[in-house]
């Protein structure tokens, strides 16, 4: 059960039997439920808020409008945006409860507190709010057109312009000299994240001690602690944030939300525990959404299909406000628009725009699936334009010609840690029986079958392992990128690991145990992992951006190495040998040449605890800590092949087969890798074929429930076929890269490339996501919508 073993997850028995407690399972006596009164209009002036009827309802404790709360002086600062991407970025102040204007449907305009959840919901309905409706910017296109303002006090919806243009002259030259050019205009529709567990919060005050414990279904308890202190003025040293069992996040729990701040301040003010759990429909308004971009990508290529230039412009939908990293999400992809290809000239610009819609922010992949989609769709367009096989075109453009490379600086100015793209593609095409598929496709086309085949591939690269703190600083991202770990040998020979990364379904407890098991030659079940509670794990930067293993897991391995070094000194002292003569293997120390006399590292914990006979100057206890700040990001990659069957009579697209060959460097737990790949792929398939937050012209979300918001289920998926190549990262001692987002980064483009390929006999060159049956059917009829 060491590194590389597909060990079953340690946390599952507890989660599967209901022993793992989620926020909504935790109750304290005297708790009050918040009921949110939400704006029914996308843009409106709040004329008056009347809570008097609500206050008369049974079990109601109190009710507040935004103006009431402002008057109570609860806020030290607006909701935080940690990523002011440019110096002149527009960032209108955003408070937990709107006082003057509501700027998206679902924005909180009043809050009621009652002694039951149902009572709070009923009382919220009884609050009377008088609104004056204002024109709403109900789509990104309307925001770009800029004839209506999402914020009535601003003169433009544009929030920022950001550019990554290392050499514009080179880009111009590439296009001027190109034999072929293609332009792709793609829409990354808004996505509703839909984690299995909705968000929820419980704040428990200690009226006499002044402490406050906040339980939140959050990916980022450490960030939350700092930012609650900054926004509410509550002293950080009195705050404790706990993310108990958390049922998925996908980026949607990487934020600082109005409800969390309300629970914290109101519980402190009222000296009562305050809680809230969003309903599934409420989540479409109370939790940020993902994607929301219009992309334009242009490629220039020479006569052989060698891509010589790539130029990208994005218009990105911020929604109504800047949340924690809203403006930066599209830029996270900026470095990846040249993909796995050696494209010498590159330029990227992005404009962020406000709309009167729910704010956007991180969603699995955050900027990188969008980038991968654009370049991989564009490569297919170029292949189609040149009449070249898409696999052949990709091969011709791979960095290092598809051979193994390390530390390659791409034109977007980053250095990719390592890659080896050629064999990865070969393996995927072989697994897919690519030639056989093309033959079958031709057969069906020739026969005019009602069901036609489409074959699509992507060769993606992603940037993860966020991140070198300096690199984040260079991007104006106000956070570090390190991770902290403590490894503690207990007196009885068991191990406690304290990790600053905060799992919400990824299986960190298992992976971290395997790392320790390998380092210390012990059973992973003798390792306990403590995490997600700022009192147990005070230092940490949490889980997102596929960073946990390549930063947090590496920190654990490094702390374990430090423990081993200390233990070696103890062993040397015990053996009366020079430390340099003490060898260590699989947990045991022995003196060179006398292997029979040995001591296991687990046996040294007790001596370190007793401290009766330590080497001179050595501190008691066998415990070490590390804050690891990686020297570079990690760049996982892979090839995905999607095979779809298109029913020409109905427009239905069935995903027949899916092949994924991913490379995330060395693997700690291949079973967990497999699970992440599967889940990620399904999420990207969701974007390609099923999901889209639909808004009407007034900015109302039309599908805020699972009745209409179609998340794919296992029934819609074929048996995913996976395999791997292994190209170790040069960014860390374990040689690992991330894999949490990889599936999503590859799959939407793979499926859409397949759909467009299948429709190409009808002259179809592109198709919007999701490729709904109606859209596909219309395309077959020659109607573009």
């Amino acid at each position: 059960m060491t590194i590389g073993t597909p060990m079953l997850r340690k946390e599952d028995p507890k989660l599967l039997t209901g022993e793992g407690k989620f926020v909504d399972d935790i109750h304290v006596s005297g708790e009050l439920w918040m009921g949110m009164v939400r704006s029914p209009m996308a843009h409106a002036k709040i004329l008056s808020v009347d809570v008097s009827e609500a206050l008369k309802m049974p079990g109601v404790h109190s009710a507040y409008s935004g103006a009431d709360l402002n008057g109570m002086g609860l806020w030290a600062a607006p909701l935080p945006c940690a990523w002011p991407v440019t110096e002149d970025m527009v960032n209108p102040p955003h408070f937990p409860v709107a006082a003057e204007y509501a700027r998206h449907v679902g924005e909180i305009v009043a809050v009621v507190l009652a002694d039951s959840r149902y009572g709070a919901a009923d009382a919220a309905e009884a609050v009377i709010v008088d609104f004056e409706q204002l024109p709403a910017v109900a789509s990104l296109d309307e925001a770009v057109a800029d004839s209506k303002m999402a914020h009535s006090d601003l003169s433009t919806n544009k929030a920022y312009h950001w550019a990554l243009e290392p050499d514009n002259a080179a880009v111009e030259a590439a296009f001027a000299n190109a034999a072929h050019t293609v332009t792709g205009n793609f829409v990354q529709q808004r996505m509703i994240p839909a984690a299995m567990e909705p968000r929820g919060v419980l704040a428990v005050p200690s009226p006499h001690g002044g402490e406050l414990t906040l339980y939140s279904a959050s990916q980022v308890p450490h960030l939350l602690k700092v930012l609650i202190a900054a926004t509410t003025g509550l002293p950080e040293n009195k705050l404790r944030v706990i993310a108990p069992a958390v049922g998925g996040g996908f980026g949607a729990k990487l934020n600082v939300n109005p409800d969390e701040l309300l629970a914290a301040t109101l519980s402190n003010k009222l000296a009562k525990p305050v809680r809230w759990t969003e309903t599934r429909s409420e989540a479409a308004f109370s939790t940020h959404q993902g994607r929301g971009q219009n992309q334009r990508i242009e490629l220039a290529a020479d006569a052989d299909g060698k891509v010589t230039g790539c130029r990208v412009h994005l218009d990105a939908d911020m929604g109504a406000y800047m949340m924690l990293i809203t403006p930066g999400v599209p830029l996270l992809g900026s470095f990846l628009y040249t993909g796995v290809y050696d494209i010498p000239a590159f330029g990227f610009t992005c404009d962020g725009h406000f709309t009167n819609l729910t704010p956007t922010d991180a969603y699995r992949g955050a900027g990188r699936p969008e980038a991968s989609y654009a370049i991989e769709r564009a490569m297919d367009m170029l292949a189609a334009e040149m009449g070249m096989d898409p696999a052949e075109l990709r091969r011709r453009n791979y960095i290092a010609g598809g051979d193994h490379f390390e530390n390659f600086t791409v034109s977007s100015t980053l250095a990719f840690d390592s890659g080896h793209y050629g064999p990865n593609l070969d393996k995927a095409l072989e697994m897919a029986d690519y030639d056989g598929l093309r033959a079958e496709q031709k057969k069906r086309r020739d026969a005019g079958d009602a069901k036609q085949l489409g074959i699509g591939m992507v060769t993606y690269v992603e940037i993860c392992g966020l991140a070198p703190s300096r690199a984040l600083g260079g991007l104006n991202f106000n956070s570090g990128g390190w991770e902290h770990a403590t490894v503690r040998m207990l007196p009885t020979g068991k191990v406690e690991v304290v990790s600053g990364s905060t799992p919400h379904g990824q299986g960190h407890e298992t992976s971290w145990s395997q790392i320790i098991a390998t380092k210390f030659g012990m059973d992973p079940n003798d390792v306990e992992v403590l995490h997600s509670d700022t009192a147990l794990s005070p230092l940490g930067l949490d889980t997102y951006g596929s960073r946990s293993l390549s930063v947090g897991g590496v920190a654990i391995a490094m702390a374990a190495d430090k423990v081993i070094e200390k233990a070696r000194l103890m062993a040397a002292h015990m053996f009366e040998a020079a430390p340099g003569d003490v060898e260590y293997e699989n947990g045991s120390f022995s003196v060179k040449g006398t292997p029979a006399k040995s001591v296991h590292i687990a046996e040294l914990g007790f001596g370190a605890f007793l401290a009766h006979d330590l080497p001179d100057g050595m501190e008691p206890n066998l415990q070490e800590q590390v804050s690891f700040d990686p020297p570079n990001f990690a760049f996982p990659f892979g090839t995905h092949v999607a095979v779809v069957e298109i029913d020409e009579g109905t427009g239905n697209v069935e995903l027949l087969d899916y092949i994924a060959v991913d490379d995330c460097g060395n693997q700690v737990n291949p079973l967990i890798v497999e699970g992440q790949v599967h889940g990620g792929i399904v999420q990207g398939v969701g974007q390609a074929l099923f999901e889209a937050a639909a808004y009407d012209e007034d900015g109302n979300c039309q599908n805020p429930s699972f009745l209409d918001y179609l998340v794919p289920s296992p029934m819609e998926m074929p048996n995913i076929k996976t395999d791997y190549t292994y190209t170790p990262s040069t960014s860390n001692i374990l040689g690992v890269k991330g894999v949490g987002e990889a599936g999503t980064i590859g799959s939407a483009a793979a499926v859409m490339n397949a759909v467009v390929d299948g429709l190409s006999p009808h002259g179809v060159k592109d198709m919007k996501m999701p490729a709904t049956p109606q859209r596909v059917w219309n395309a077959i009829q020659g109607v573009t919508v």
Partner: protein
Amino acid sequence: MIPAAFDYVTADSADAAIAALTEHGDEAKLLAGGHSLIPLMKFRLATPSVLIDIGRLSDLSYIKEDGDQVAVGAMTTHRAIENSDVLKAQLPMLAHVAGQVGDPSVRHRGTLGGSIAHGDPASDLPAALLALGGSVVVKGPNGERTIAADDFFTGFLETALAPDELMTELRFPKMPDAKWSYQKFNRRAQDWAIVGVAAVTNPMNTSVALVNMGAMPLRAEAVEAALQGGASAADAAAKAGDGMSPPTDLNADANYRNALAQTLVARALAETGA
């Protein structure tokens, strides 16, 4: 997703349910499997002040042969219908259609009576009832009456059931040898049909019912008439949208629904050999 407050009573007999309906009038709703009613209540689209739970009326859960008919109790679950040997032999389409409803947990709770009484144009079983020429037995304070399927659905979520009536039974003529086809078109396996077609071909005639092609469960009268008049299956199928006013929603506009209906009717008729 949090329903408004309501009172809850349980009925331990059909008569008790009818008495409770009479007592509480329009304010009351019968609760069978709850899989249509409770979602409406959670969206606060339905706010009954009293729920009369008929979930314990196990004597309304049965499938039995009765001469040339099969009688199915209103409280019979989709799951029981799907697995019934009697239905598989006598009315295989009904068993099949029940197996196409939602997902297994929906099928274990949802009832045939609830599905028919709800009268949702997007639901599967009403189309089967129409195509199979079934009838609905209801009981009220003034006794029992039987309503032909064709007369049962009257408008959007409206039926011939009076507010004080309880549906007790569904009756279907046996047709072990009929050729049938059920075409359900949806995006995910668990979803309602975007368009569905139930077709039943007997030696004398073919009946075709449509799902989600109008305000209520409907017969494809133009298709049936064309077939009766000797048209080819392809020509008849081309009339699937005639006289329909299909809804527009996020999945499909009216134009696409018409096209789907034509394709699916053609496929259904090809299967039944009409």
